[in-house]
Protein backbone atom coordinates (compact mmCIF):
# COMPACT_ATOMS: atom_id res chain seq x y z
CA UNK A 1 0.00 0.00 0.00
CA UNK A 2 1.12 3.53 -0.63
CA UNK A 3 1.54 6.02 2.18
CA UNK A 4 -1.59 7.68 0.90
CA UNK A 5 -3.61 4.49 1.11
CA UNK A 6 -2.24 3.92 4.57
CA UNK A 7 -4.05 6.95 5.84
CA UNK A 8 -6.20 5.75 8.67
CA UNK A 9 -9.82 4.94 8.09
CA UNK A 10 -10.29 6.16 11.60
CA UNK A 11 -9.38 9.81 11.41
CA UNK A 12 -8.04 11.99 14.21
CA UNK A 13 -10.90 14.28 13.45
CA UNK A 14 -13.20 11.34 14.11
CA UNK A 15 -15.89 10.84 16.65
CA UNK A 16 -16.92 13.29 19.27
CA UNK A 17 -17.06 10.39 21.70
CA UNK A 18 -13.29 10.47 21.89
CA UNK A 19 -13.11 6.68 21.91
CA UNK A 20 -9.67 5.34 20.99
CA UNK A 21 -9.41 3.97 17.47
CA UNK A 22 -10.05 0.27 17.24
CA UNK A 23 -6.80 -1.52 16.40
CA UNK A 24 -6.98 -3.78 13.37
CA UNK A 25 -8.05 -7.22 14.43
CA UNK A 26 -7.69 -10.41 12.48
CA UNK A 27 -9.78 -13.31 13.54
CA UNK A 28 -7.83 -16.24 14.90
CA UNK A 29 -9.42 -18.66 12.55
CA UNK A 30 -8.35 -16.77 9.41
CA UNK A 31 -5.99 -19.50 8.26
CA UNK A 32 -8.70 -22.09 8.76
CA UNK A 33 -11.17 -19.96 6.81
CA UNK A 34 -8.75 -19.62 3.93
CA UNK A 35 -8.09 -23.32 3.90
CA UNK A 36 -11.80 -24.09 3.92
CA UNK A 37 -12.28 -21.70 1.02
CA UNK A 38 -9.55 -23.43 -0.98
CA UNK A 39 -7.51 -20.31 -1.67
CA UNK A 40 -4.19 -18.82 -0.66
CA UNK A 41 -5.47 -15.33 -1.33
CA UNK A 42 -5.55 -12.94 1.61
CA UNK A 43 -8.93 -12.09 3.07
CA UNK A 44 -9.90 -8.48 2.47
CA UNK A 45 -13.40 -8.39 3.92
CA UNK A 46 -14.78 -10.62 6.63
CA UNK A 47 -18.53 -10.53 6.88
CA UNK A 48 -20.15 -12.13 9.91
CA UNK A 49 -23.88 -12.41 10.52
CA UNK A 50 -24.64 -9.27 8.61
CA UNK A 51 -28.25 -8.08 8.61
CA UNK A 52 -29.67 -5.06 6.85
CA UNK A 53 -33.03 -3.48 7.68
CA UNK A 54 -34.80 -0.65 5.90
CA UNK A 55 -37.17 0.47 8.61
CA UNK A 56 -39.36 -2.58 9.31
CA UNK A 57 -38.19 -4.36 6.21
CA UNK A 58 -35.56 -7.02 6.79
CA UNK A 59 -33.65 -6.85 3.49
CA UNK A 60 -30.65 -9.09 4.19
CA UNK A 61 -30.62 -11.90 6.71
CA UNK A 62 -27.55 -13.27 8.49
CA UNK A 63 -24.93 -13.19 5.75
CA UNK A 64 -21.42 -14.45 6.48
CA UNK A 65 -18.72 -14.62 3.84
CA UNK A 66 -15.12 -13.65 3.15
CA UNK A 67 -14.00 -11.56 0.18
CA UNK A 68 -10.49 -12.29 -1.09
CA UNK A 69 -7.90 -9.83 -2.24
CA UNK A 70 -7.35 -9.39 -5.98
CA UNK A 71 -10.16 -11.66 -6.91
CA UNK A 72 -13.43 -10.93 -8.62
CA UNK A 73 -16.37 -11.94 -6.47
CA UNK A 74 -19.82 -11.85 -7.99
CA UNK A 75 -23.19 -11.69 -6.28
CA UNK A 76 -26.02 -13.26 -8.23
CA UNK A 77 -29.65 -14.00 -7.50
CA UNK A 78 -33.21 -13.02 -8.40
CA UNK A 79 -34.61 -9.51 -7.90
CA UNK A 80 -35.08 -8.66 -4.27
CA UNK A 81 -32.52 -11.18 -3.03
CA UNK A 82 -30.50 -8.46 -1.32
CA UNK A 83 -27.41 -8.62 -3.53
CA UNK A 84 -27.28 -4.89 -4.28
CA UNK A 85 -28.07 -4.03 -0.67
CA UNK A 86 -25.26 -6.33 0.34
CA UNK A 87 -22.87 -4.66 -2.12
CA UNK A 88 -23.67 -1.22 -0.73
CA UNK A 89 -22.66 -2.38 2.76
CA UNK A 90 -19.04 -2.65 1.62
CA UNK A 91 -18.58 1.10 1.25
CA UNK A 92 -21.35 2.21 3.61
CA UNK A 93 -23.55 3.53 0.82
CA UNK A 94 -26.54 2.33 2.84
CA UNK A 95 -25.72 5.06 5.37
CA UNK A 96 -27.17 7.46 2.83
CA UNK A 97 -30.54 5.72 2.83
CA UNK A 98 -33.06 6.94 5.39
CA UNK A 99 -33.97 4.22 7.88
CA UNK A 100 -31.29 1.77 6.77
CA UNK A 101 -29.70 -0.17 9.62
CA UNK A 102 -26.75 -2.56 9.33
CA UNK A 103 -26.03 -5.01 12.14
CA UNK A 104 -23.50 -7.80 12.49
CA UNK A 105 -19.90 -7.29 11.56
CA UNK A 106 -18.12 -6.30 8.38
CA UNK A 107 -14.36 -6.04 8.69
CA UNK A 108 -12.02 -4.58 6.10
CA UNK A 109 -8.37 -5.52 6.60
CA UNK A 110 -9.44 -6.43 10.13
CA UNK A 111 -11.06 -3.09 10.92
CA UNK A 112 -14.78 -3.00 11.64
CA UNK A 113 -16.15 -0.78 8.86
CA UNK A 114 -19.11 0.14 11.02
CA UNK A 115 -16.97 0.65 14.13
CA UNK A 116 -16.80 3.91 16.01
CA UNK A 117 -14.78 6.66 14.40
CA UNK A 118 -14.59 5.13 10.93
CA UNK A 119 -14.80 7.91 8.37
CA UNK A 120 -17.28 6.90 5.63
CA UNK A 121 -15.72 9.33 3.15
CA UNK A 122 -12.33 7.68 3.54
CA UNK A 123 -14.06 4.28 3.27
CA UNK A 124 -15.53 5.33 -0.08
CA UNK A 125 -12.19 6.63 -1.32
CA UNK A 126 -10.63 3.24 -0.70
CA UNK A 127 -13.66 1.29 -1.79
CA UNK A 128 -14.81 2.84 -5.04
CA UNK A 129 -18.02 2.15 -6.88
CA UNK A 130 -19.29 1.89 -10.44
CA UNK A 131 -23.03 2.03 -11.01
CA UNK A 132 -25.55 0.42 -13.32
CA UNK A 133 -25.91 3.37 -15.66
CA UNK A 134 -22.79 5.24 -16.65
CA UNK A 135 -22.98 8.50 -14.69
CA UNK A 136 -20.12 10.77 -15.73
CA UNK A 137 -20.16 14.31 -14.42
CA UNK A 138 -21.41 16.89 -16.98
CA UNK A 139 -17.84 18.00 -17.47
CA UNK A 140 -14.89 17.25 -19.69
CA UNK A 141 -13.24 13.84 -19.76
CA UNK A 142 -10.24 15.42 -18.06
CA UNK A 143 -12.33 16.93 -15.28
CA UNK A 144 -14.19 13.70 -14.65
CA UNK A 145 -10.95 12.01 -13.64
CA UNK A 146 -9.30 14.99 -11.95
CA UNK A 147 -12.24 15.79 -9.69
CA UNK A 148 -11.89 12.97 -7.15
CA UNK A 149 -8.13 13.22 -6.63
CA UNK A 150 -8.39 16.99 -6.33
CA UNK A 151 -10.97 16.95 -3.53
CA UNK A 152 -9.04 14.25 -1.69
CA UNK A 153 -5.96 16.46 -1.74
CA UNK A 154 -3.90 14.92 -4.54
CA UNK A 155 -0.80 17.10 -5.05
CA UNK A 156 1.07 15.14 -7.72
CA UNK A 157 1.07 15.13 -11.52
CA UNK A 158 -2.60 15.33 -12.46
CA UNK A 159 -2.04 14.78 -16.19
CA UNK A 160 0.02 11.71 -15.44
CA UNK A 161 -2.68 10.42 -13.12
CA UNK A 162 -5.35 11.01 -15.76
CA UNK A 163 -3.37 9.13 -18.39
CA UNK A 164 -2.62 6.29 -16.01
CA UNK A 165 -6.25 5.97 -14.91
CA UNK A 166 -7.54 6.04 -18.49
CA UNK A 167 -4.96 3.48 -19.57
CA UNK A 168 -5.93 1.16 -16.75
CA UNK A 169 -9.53 1.53 -17.81
CA UNK A 170 -8.57 0.66 -21.43
CA UNK A 171 -9.90 4.01 -22.65
CA UNK A 172 -6.77 6.11 -23.20
CA UNK A 173 -6.26 5.35 -26.88
CA UNK A 174 -9.84 6.28 -27.67
CA UNK A 175 -9.91 9.61 -25.82
CA UNK A 176 -6.34 10.90 -25.61
CA UNK A 177 -6.95 13.50 -28.33
CA UNK A 178 -10.18 14.84 -26.87
CA UNK A 179 -9.68 15.08 -23.13
CA UNK A 180 -11.23 18.55 -23.11
CA UNK A 181 -14.44 17.32 -24.72
CA UNK A 182 -17.58 16.59 -22.73
CA UNK A 183 -17.83 13.10 -21.29
CA UNK A 184 -21.35 13.00 -22.67
CA UNK A 185 -19.90 12.82 -26.18
CA UNK A 186 -18.68 9.29 -25.44
CA UNK A 187 -20.62 6.10 -26.18
CA UNK A 188 -22.28 4.24 -23.31
CA UNK A 189 -19.49 1.69 -23.10
CA UNK A 190 -16.85 4.42 -23.14
CA UNK A 191 -18.73 6.37 -20.48
CA UNK A 192 -18.78 3.30 -18.26
CA UNK A 193 -15.04 2.82 -18.73
CA UNK A 194 -14.63 6.51 -17.90
CA UNK A 195 -16.54 5.89 -14.66
CA UNK A 196 -14.19 3.00 -13.93
CA UNK A 197 -11.21 5.29 -14.63
CA UNK A 198 -12.75 7.86 -12.32
CA UNK A 199 -13.24 5.24 -9.60
CA UNK A 200 -9.62 4.09 -9.75
CA UNK A 201 -8.13 7.61 -9.97
CA UNK A 202 -8.41 8.01 -6.20
CA UNK A 203 -6.21 4.94 -5.74
CA UNK A 204 -8.75 2.62 -4.10
CA UNK A 205 -8.03 -1.01 -3.40
CA UNK A 206 -11.55 -2.22 -3.95
CA UNK A 207 -13.95 -1.48 -6.80
CA UNK A 208 -17.62 -2.31 -6.27
CA UNK A 209 -19.65 -2.74 -9.45
CA UNK A 210 -23.42 -2.68 -9.38
CA UNK A 211 -24.58 -4.26 -12.64
CA UNK A 212 -21.98 -2.30 -14.60
CA UNK A 213 -22.94 -3.74 -17.98
CA UNK A 214 -26.71 -3.87 -17.83
CA UNK A 215 -27.03 -0.67 -19.89
CA UNK A 216 -24.42 -1.74 -22.45
CA UNK A 217 -24.50 -3.70 -25.70
CA UNK A 218 -22.83 -7.13 -25.88
CA UNK A 219 -19.56 -5.89 -27.38
CA UNK A 220 -19.17 -3.10 -24.81
CA UNK A 221 -20.05 -5.67 -22.15
CA UNK A 222 -17.25 -8.01 -23.28
CA UNK A 223 -14.82 -5.08 -23.23
CA UNK A 224 -15.72 -4.28 -19.62
CA UNK A 225 -15.37 -7.97 -18.75
CA UNK A 226 -11.90 -8.08 -20.32
CA UNK A 227 -11.01 -4.91 -18.47
CA UNK A 228 -12.08 -6.50 -15.18
CA UNK A 229 -9.57 -9.30 -15.75
CA UNK A 230 -6.83 -6.69 -16.04
CA UNK A 231 -8.06 -4.66 -13.09
CA UNK A 232 -8.00 -7.59 -10.74
CA UNK A 233 -4.21 -7.65 -10.98
CA UNK A 234 -4.37 -4.46 -8.89
CA UNK A 235 -7.81 -4.25 -7.34
CA UNK A 236 -10.28 -6.41 -5.51
CA UNK A 237 -13.59 -6.38 -7.36
CA UNK A 238 -17.08 -7.22 -6.17
CA UNK A 239 -19.75 -7.23 -8.87
CA UNK A 240 -23.49 -7.55 -8.66
CA UNK A 241 -25.00 -8.90 -11.85
CA UNK A 242 -28.40 -10.02 -13.05
CA UNK A 243 -26.61 -11.84 -15.80
CA UNK A 244 -25.37 -15.06 -14.31
CA UNK A 245 -23.46 -15.95 -17.48
CA UNK A 246 -21.46 -12.83 -16.81
CA UNK A 247 -20.74 -14.00 -13.27
CA UNK A 248 -19.67 -17.35 -14.72
CA UNK A 249 -17.36 -15.68 -17.22
CA UNK A 250 -15.63 -13.09 -15.10
CA UNK A 251 -15.58 -14.02 -11.45
CA UNK A 252 -13.33 -16.16 -9.30
CA UNK A 253 -16.00 -16.65 -6.67
CA UNK A 254 -19.73 -16.48 -6.83
CA UNK A 255 -22.25 -15.89 -4.06
CA UNK A 256 -25.82 -16.91 -4.82
CA UNK A 257 -28.47 -15.01 -2.87
CA UNK A 258 -32.10 -16.00 -2.83
CA UNK A 259 -35.36 -14.63 -1.57
CA UNK A 260 -36.81 -16.28 1.48
CA UNK A 261 -39.98 -15.55 3.41
CA UNK A 262 -39.61 -14.82 7.09
CA UNK A 263 -42.11 -15.86 9.78
CA UNK A 264 -44.17 -12.75 9.04
CA UNK A 265 -44.36 -13.66 5.38
CA UNK A 266 -41.98 -10.89 4.34
CA UNK A 267 -39.38 -11.40 1.66
CA UNK A 268 -35.78 -11.17 2.70
CA UNK A 269 -32.47 -11.86 1.05
CA UNK A 270 -30.32 -14.72 2.16
CA UNK A 271 -26.99 -16.16 1.07
CA UNK A 272 -27.61 -19.69 -0.22
CA UNK A 273 -24.22 -20.73 -1.53
CA UNK A 274 -20.79 -19.21 -1.89
CA UNK A 275 -18.10 -21.09 -3.79
CA UNK A 276 -15.35 -20.82 -6.40
CA UNK A 277 -17.19 -19.94 -9.62
CA UNK A 278 -16.08 -23.09 -11.45
CA UNK A 279 -17.51 -25.23 -8.70
CA UNK A 280 -20.74 -23.29 -8.34
CA UNK A 281 -21.48 -23.58 -12.06
CA UNK A 282 -20.50 -27.23 -12.47
CA UNK A 283 -21.44 -28.89 -9.19
CA UNK A 284 -23.33 -26.63 -6.81
CA UNK A 285 -24.02 -28.03 -3.35
CA UNK A 286 -27.49 -26.57 -3.02
CA UNK A 287 -30.55 -27.59 -4.99
CA UNK A 288 -31.74 -23.95 -4.99
CA UNK A 289 -28.49 -22.89 -6.68
CA UNK A 290 -28.83 -25.56 -9.35
CA UNK A 291 -32.44 -24.57 -10.01
CA UNK A 292 -31.48 -20.93 -10.39
CA UNK A 293 -28.44 -21.31 -12.61
CA UNK A 294 -30.13 -23.83 -14.88
CA UNK A 295 -33.11 -21.51 -15.29
CA UNK A 296 -35.51 -23.79 -13.41
CA UNK A 297 -36.07 -21.33 -10.64
CA UNK A 298 -39.70 -21.60 -9.59
Amino acid at each position, binding site marked *: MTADADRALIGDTGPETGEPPTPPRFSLDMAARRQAAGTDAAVMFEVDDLNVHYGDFHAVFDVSLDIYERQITSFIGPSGCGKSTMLRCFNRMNDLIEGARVTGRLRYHGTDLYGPGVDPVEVRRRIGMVFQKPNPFPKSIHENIAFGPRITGFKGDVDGLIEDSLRRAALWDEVKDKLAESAYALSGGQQQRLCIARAIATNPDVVLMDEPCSALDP*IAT*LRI*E*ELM*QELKETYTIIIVTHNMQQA*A*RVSDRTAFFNVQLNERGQRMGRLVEYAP*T*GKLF*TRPDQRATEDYITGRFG
Partner: protein
Amino acid sequence: MTGSQYYGPLLGPEARSHFDEQLSLTRQGLIELGSLVTENLRLAGEAMQENRLDLIPEVRKADLAINERYYELERRTFEILARQQPVAGDLRFLVSATRIVYEQERSGDLAVNCVNMLERLSGFPDLPLLRSLLTQLVDASAHTFQMSVDALESMDPESGVRLDRADNEVDTLVSLFYAEIGKQAETMGLESAIALSRVGRYLERIADHAVNIGEHVTYVVTAEFPKPDHVTPSDRP
Protein backbone atom coordinates in the same frame (compact mmCIF):
# COMPACT_ATOMS: atom_id res chain seq x y z
CA MET B 1 -16.01 -24.57 -45.63
CA THR B 2 -15.88 -20.83 -46.11
CA GLY B 3 -18.45 -19.69 -43.57
CA SER B 4 -17.44 -22.08 -40.87
CA GLN B 5 -13.68 -21.95 -41.32
CA TYR B 6 -12.18 -22.14 -37.85
CA TYR B 7 -8.89 -20.41 -37.38
CA GLY B 8 -8.07 -21.92 -34.05
CA PRO B 9 -8.07 -20.39 -30.61
CA LEU B 10 -4.48 -19.17 -30.89
CA LEU B 11 -5.47 -16.87 -33.72
CA GLY B 12 -8.71 -15.66 -32.18
CA PRO B 13 -9.75 -12.03 -31.94
CA GLU B 14 -8.42 -10.06 -29.04
CA ALA B 15 -11.86 -9.08 -27.80
CA ARG B 16 -11.98 -12.06 -25.47
CA SER B 17 -8.34 -12.57 -24.63
CA HIS B 18 -9.10 -14.28 -21.31
CA PHE B 19 -11.33 -16.84 -22.99
CA ASP B 20 -8.88 -17.21 -25.89
CA GLU B 21 -6.16 -17.96 -23.40
CA GLN B 22 -8.27 -20.71 -21.87
CA LEU B 23 -8.85 -22.20 -25.33
CA SER B 24 -5.12 -22.07 -26.04
CA LEU B 25 -4.35 -23.77 -22.75
CA THR B 26 -6.86 -26.48 -23.56
CA ARG B 27 -5.27 -27.11 -26.95
CA GLN B 28 -1.82 -27.08 -25.36
CA GLY B 29 -3.09 -29.59 -22.80
CA LEU B 30 -4.32 -31.91 -25.58
CA ILE B 31 -0.99 -31.67 -27.38
CA GLU B 32 0.94 -32.45 -24.20
CA LEU B 33 -1.33 -35.34 -23.25
CA GLY B 34 -1.02 -36.75 -26.77
CA SER B 35 2.77 -36.44 -26.58
CA LEU B 36 2.86 -38.29 -23.27
CA VAL B 37 0.77 -41.11 -24.73
CA THR B 38 3.03 -41.31 -27.82
CA GLU B 39 6.07 -41.44 -25.60
CA ASN B 40 4.60 -44.20 -23.47
CA LEU B 41 3.54 -46.11 -26.54
CA ARG B 42 7.14 -46.01 -27.80
CA LEU B 43 8.37 -47.17 -24.40
CA ALA B 44 5.89 -50.06 -24.44
CA GLY B 45 7.10 -50.78 -27.97
CA GLU B 46 10.71 -50.90 -26.84
CA ALA B 47 9.76 -53.28 -24.01
CA MET B 48 8.01 -55.60 -26.48
CA GLN B 49 10.65 -55.45 -29.21
CA GLU B 50 13.53 -56.21 -26.88
CA ASN B 51 11.71 -58.27 -24.25
CA ARG B 52 12.60 -55.65 -21.67
CA LEU B 53 10.41 -56.80 -18.79
CA ASP B 54 12.13 -54.24 -16.58
CA LEU B 55 10.38 -51.45 -18.52
CA ILE B 56 6.89 -52.71 -17.69
CA PRO B 57 6.58 -50.89 -14.32
CA GLU B 58 7.75 -47.70 -16.01
CA VAL B 59 5.02 -47.95 -18.63
CA ARG B 60 2.40 -48.47 -15.92
CA LYS B 61 3.68 -45.57 -13.88
CA ALA B 62 3.64 -43.23 -16.85
CA ASP B 63 0.06 -44.24 -17.54
CA LEU B 64 -0.99 -43.19 -14.05
CA ALA B 65 0.37 -39.72 -14.80
CA ILE B 66 -1.51 -39.76 -18.12
CA ASN B 67 -4.75 -40.60 -16.32
CA GLU B 68 -4.24 -37.73 -13.88
CA ARG B 69 -3.74 -35.31 -16.75
CA TYR B 70 -6.79 -36.67 -18.51
CA TYR B 71 -9.06 -36.09 -15.51
CA GLU B 72 -7.68 -32.61 -14.97
CA LEU B 73 -8.02 -31.60 -18.62
CA GLU B 74 -11.53 -32.97 -18.84
CA ARG B 75 -12.56 -31.18 -15.65
CA ARG B 76 -11.12 -27.91 -16.92
CA THR B 77 -12.87 -28.29 -20.26
CA PHE B 78 -16.22 -28.86 -18.57
CA GLU B 79 -15.62 -25.77 -16.49
CA ILE B 80 -14.92 -23.66 -19.56
CA LEU B 81 -18.09 -25.00 -21.19
CA ALA B 82 -20.07 -24.08 -18.09
CA ARG B 83 -18.54 -20.65 -17.67
CA GLN B 84 -17.95 -19.26 -21.14
CA GLN B 85 -21.07 -20.31 -23.07
CA PRO B 86 -19.03 -21.14 -26.18
CA VAL B 87 -20.69 -21.21 -29.60
CA ALA B 88 -19.72 -22.11 -33.19
CA GLY B 89 -16.01 -22.96 -33.62
CA ASP B 90 -15.30 -22.55 -29.92
CA LEU B 91 -18.12 -24.95 -29.07
CA ARG B 92 -16.96 -27.49 -31.66
CA PHE B 93 -13.45 -27.25 -30.30
CA LEU B 94 -14.40 -27.70 -26.64
CA VAL B 95 -16.88 -30.51 -27.22
CA SER B 96 -14.30 -32.21 -29.46
CA ALA B 97 -11.69 -31.69 -26.74
CA THR B 98 -13.79 -33.78 -24.34
CA ARG B 99 -13.82 -36.54 -26.98
CA ILE B 100 -10.16 -36.21 -27.89
CA VAL B 101 -8.96 -36.56 -24.29
CA TYR B 102 -10.98 -39.74 -24.06
CA GLU B 103 -9.38 -41.16 -27.22
CA GLN B 104 -5.95 -40.26 -25.84
CA GLU B 105 -6.55 -41.77 -22.43
CA ARG B 106 -7.91 -44.98 -23.98
CA SER B 107 -4.81 -45.24 -26.19
CA GLY B 108 -2.66 -44.92 -23.09
CA ASP B 109 -4.54 -47.83 -21.52
CA LEU B 110 -3.96 -49.94 -24.63
CA ALA B 111 -0.20 -49.38 -24.37
CA VAL B 112 -0.41 -50.79 -20.83
CA ASN B 113 -2.47 -53.73 -22.11
CA CYS B 114 0.35 -54.49 -24.55
CA VAL B 115 2.97 -54.79 -21.81
CA ASN B 116 0.53 -56.84 -19.72
CA MET B 117 0.70 -59.44 -22.50
CA LEU B 118 4.48 -59.23 -22.47
CA GLU B 119 4.46 -59.86 -18.73
CA ARG B 120 2.05 -62.75 -19.04
CA LEU B 121 4.40 -64.55 -21.44
CA SER B 122 7.55 -63.41 -19.58
CA GLY B 123 8.80 -62.18 -22.95
CA PHE B 124 7.63 -62.82 -26.51
CA PRO B 125 8.91 -65.88 -28.48
CA ASP B 126 12.04 -65.37 -30.51
CA LEU B 127 10.73 -65.80 -34.05
CA PRO B 128 12.50 -63.41 -36.46
CA LEU B 129 9.73 -62.71 -38.98
CA LEU B 130 7.13 -62.29 -36.27
CA ARG B 131 9.41 -59.94 -34.38
CA SER B 132 10.11 -57.93 -37.49
CA LEU B 133 6.38 -57.52 -38.14
CA LEU B 134 5.79 -56.59 -34.50
CA THR B 135 8.47 -53.91 -34.75
CA GLN B 136 6.91 -52.50 -37.91
CA LEU B 137 3.46 -52.58 -36.33
CA VAL B 138 4.60 -50.81 -33.17
CA ASP B 139 6.34 -48.16 -35.26
CA ALA B 140 3.34 -47.64 -37.54
CA SER B 141 0.94 -47.42 -34.62
CA ALA B 142 3.14 -44.96 -32.70
CA HIS B 143 3.71 -42.96 -35.89
CA THR B 144 -0.03 -42.74 -36.53
CA PHE B 145 -0.62 -41.61 -32.99
CA GLN B 146 2.11 -39.00 -33.33
CA MET B 147 0.28 -37.74 -36.42
CA SER B 148 -2.81 -37.15 -34.26
CA VAL B 149 -0.68 -34.96 -31.98
CA ASP B 150 0.67 -33.10 -35.02
CA ALA B 151 -2.92 -32.59 -36.19
CA LEU B 152 -3.74 -30.86 -32.91
CA GLU B 153 -0.67 -28.72 -33.39
CA SER B 154 -1.47 -27.69 -36.97
CA MET B 155 -5.29 -27.79 -36.85
CA ASP B 156 -5.02 -28.90 -40.47
CA PRO B 157 -8.48 -29.52 -42.01
CA GLU B 158 -7.05 -32.48 -43.96
CA SER B 159 -6.06 -34.27 -40.75
CA GLY B 160 -8.97 -36.71 -40.81
CA VAL B 161 -8.18 -37.93 -44.31
CA ARG B 162 -4.46 -38.08 -43.65
CA LEU B 163 -4.87 -40.09 -40.46
CA ASP B 164 -7.26 -42.45 -42.20
CA ARG B 165 -4.59 -43.23 -44.82
CA ALA B 166 -1.98 -43.86 -42.14
CA ASP B 167 -4.42 -46.19 -40.43
CA ASN B 168 -4.76 -48.25 -43.61
CA GLU B 169 -1.06 -49.07 -43.38
CA VAL B 170 -1.49 -50.16 -39.77
CA ASP B 171 -4.43 -52.36 -40.79
CA THR B 172 -2.34 -53.98 -43.53
CA LEU B 173 0.47 -54.71 -41.09
CA VAL B 174 -1.96 -56.16 -38.57
CA SER B 175 -3.30 -58.55 -41.22
CA LEU B 176 0.25 -59.69 -42.02
CA PHE B 177 0.98 -60.02 -38.30
CA TYR B 178 -2.13 -62.20 -37.73
CA ALA B 179 -1.21 -64.37 -40.72
CA GLU B 180 2.28 -64.92 -39.35
CA ILE B 181 0.89 -65.75 -35.89
CA GLY B 182 -1.33 -68.32 -37.58
CA LYS B 183 1.65 -69.89 -39.35
CA GLN B 184 3.75 -70.05 -36.21
CA ALA B 185 0.97 -70.95 -33.77
CA GLU B 186 2.08 -74.52 -33.31
CA THR B 187 5.72 -73.55 -32.82
CA MET B 188 5.03 -70.98 -30.15
CA GLY B 189 2.00 -72.54 -28.53
CA LEU B 190 -1.57 -71.41 -28.13
CA GLU B 191 -1.00 -69.10 -25.20
CA SER B 192 1.64 -67.08 -27.05
CA ALA B 193 -0.47 -66.98 -30.19
CA ILE B 194 -3.46 -65.58 -28.30
CA ALA B 195 -1.38 -63.02 -26.39
CA LEU B 196 0.33 -61.78 -29.56
CA SER B 197 -3.01 -61.56 -31.37
CA ARG B 198 -4.28 -59.38 -28.60
CA VAL B 199 -1.20 -57.16 -28.88
CA GLY B 200 -1.96 -56.80 -32.59
CA ARG B 201 -5.51 -55.85 -31.80
CA TYR B 202 -4.40 -53.25 -29.19
CA LEU B 203 -1.95 -51.60 -31.60
CA GLU B 204 -4.64 -51.50 -34.26
CA ARG B 205 -7.08 -49.86 -31.85
CA ILE B 206 -4.53 -47.19 -30.93
CA ALA B 207 -4.33 -46.19 -34.58
CA ASP B 208 -8.15 -46.12 -34.72
CA HIS B 209 -8.23 -43.71 -31.79
CA ALA B 210 -5.66 -41.57 -33.60
CA VAL B 211 -7.94 -41.47 -36.65
CA ASN B 212 -10.85 -40.34 -34.48
CA ILE B 213 -8.69 -37.51 -33.14
CA GLY B 214 -7.76 -36.47 -36.68
CA GLU B 215 -11.42 -36.50 -37.69
CA HIS B 216 -12.30 -34.32 -34.74
CA VAL B 217 -9.63 -31.84 -35.81
CA THR B 218 -11.21 -31.74 -39.27
CA TYR B 219 -14.62 -31.25 -37.66
CA VAL B 220 -13.40 -28.42 -35.44
CA VAL B 221 -11.90 -26.59 -38.41
CA THR B 222 -14.51 -27.24 -41.10
CA ALA B 223 -17.66 -28.01 -39.07
CA GLU B 224 -17.91 -31.30 -40.94
CA PHE B 225 -16.51 -34.75 -40.38
CA PRO B 226 -14.47 -36.20 -43.26
CA LYS B 227 -16.56 -37.55 -46.12
CA PRO B 228 -17.69 -41.17 -45.61
CA ASP B 229 -15.73 -42.46 -48.63
CA HIS B 230 -12.55 -41.75 -46.70
CA VAL B 231 -13.70 -43.52 -43.60
CA THR B 232 -14.95 -47.01 -42.93
CA PRO B 233 -18.32 -46.92 -41.14
CA SER B 234 -17.11 -48.69 -37.99
CA ASP B 235 -14.48 -46.02 -37.47
CA ARG B 236 -16.91 -43.15 -37.35
CA PRO B 237 -16.44 -41.37 -34.03
